[in-house]
């Protein structure tokens, strides 16, 4: 029974209640663990896809991880997981819920573009040669693309749930998708340059958030 037929076919609330009662089927309560498994599955698929299709950056198989990689990928992973966990929670509405935790993770990750700006200015220029631009745009697009798996998983989850703040849920979904996509792609991207990471890798998160904010709300509104 859809919403319109339910409303137009009934004239009183009592009649509607009778119809709804007749329509009742047992339902499985929405478990947050299932939503989190979806996110981890998408993350695993992204990271595996990057590893198999593009190859890992050389220092990973060699076991000598660059500090930049640990810092950057750690920040994106934490931001992505924090935002995704909040999105998963938003599927079950409750007056009194607080989703502010991701704001701190976003503030911490914002240190990357700030560092890029400081470093770029310190060098005298941000230094965007045509090659830098090509490489940067490639990273930007790849981060968004690999994050689309997470975004799809979160949209599917939110459609099963009842998000009462669809715009915020959409924005957080985009942040989660961009961050986890960038985490996966950073396993391939060989750059250790702070300016490149701060500008293009963080840009992928911002772009993903913007796209999700514009595209996702109509898909999850109920």
């Amino acid at each position: 029974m859809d919403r319109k037929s339910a409303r137009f076919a009934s004239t009183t609330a009592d009649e509607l209640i009778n119809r709804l009662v007749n329509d009742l089927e047992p339902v499985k309560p929405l478990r947050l663990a299932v939503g989190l498994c979806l996110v981890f599955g998408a993350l695993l698929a992204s990271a595996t896809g990057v590893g198999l299709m593009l190859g890992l950056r050389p220092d990973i198989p060699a076991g000598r991880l660059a500090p930049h990689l640990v810092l950057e990928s750690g920040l994106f992973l934490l931001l992505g997981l924090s935002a995704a966990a909040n999105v998963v929670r938003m599927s079950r509405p409750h007056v009194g819920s607080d989703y502010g935790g991701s704001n701190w993770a976003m503030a911490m990750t914002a240190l990357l573009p700030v560092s890029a700006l400081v470093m770029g200015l310190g060098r005298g220029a941000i230094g965007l040669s045509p090659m830098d631009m090509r490489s940067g745009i490639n990273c930007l697009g790849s981060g968004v693309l690999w994050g689309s798996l997470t975004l799809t998983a979160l949209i599917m989850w939110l459609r099963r749930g009842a998000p009462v703040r669809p715009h915020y849920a959409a924005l957080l979904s985009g942040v989660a998708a961009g961050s986890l996509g960038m985490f996966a792609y950073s396993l391939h991207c060989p750059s250790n340059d702070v300016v490149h990471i701060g500008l293009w890798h963080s840009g992928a998160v911002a772009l993903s958030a913007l796209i999700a904010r514009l595209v996702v709300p109509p898909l999850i509104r109920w």
Partner: protein
Amino acid sequence: MTPDETSLAQLAIMAQRGDKEAYAALLHECQRWMKSYLGRRIARHDLDDLVQETLFALHQKLATYDSTRAFVPWLAAIARYRWAGHLRQVYRARKHSGGTDVISHNDESAMMARISLNSLFAQLPAPQAQAIELVKIEGLSIAEAACASGQSEALVKINIHRGLKKLSAMIERA
């Protein structure tokens, strides 16, 4: 006698398992609760429609109730969501009724106060709350609301727009 929070939660758990008798009791109680909850913040002639829409939303999203948490805040979040959507859609409404905002349960009064629509409205800046109240709930035209509030017509429109945006963002705020 109105069931308490624990009974409502129990009925919801039984409804999730497919117990139609419990579900009918739950829906009737929710209907009563919503009439009281929404009654003061909606034009009377829109109340039945909104209650029915919210009941239907409850039916669609029954699986999202988490049995480890209180039932009423879940119901209130759904009611607020539908109410905010309704305010965005409705431009004309008659005078609101003078119903009570919340059911009065001594042992639950603190929780009910936190989730009331009045508390949500109180978090809006006064000019925004007034503009929404006059136009969306009392059904005045923009020009009439401007006269009544002392705001310009443009400001009434801006305040409605900003106020509704804020209300939507505060749906889960206690």
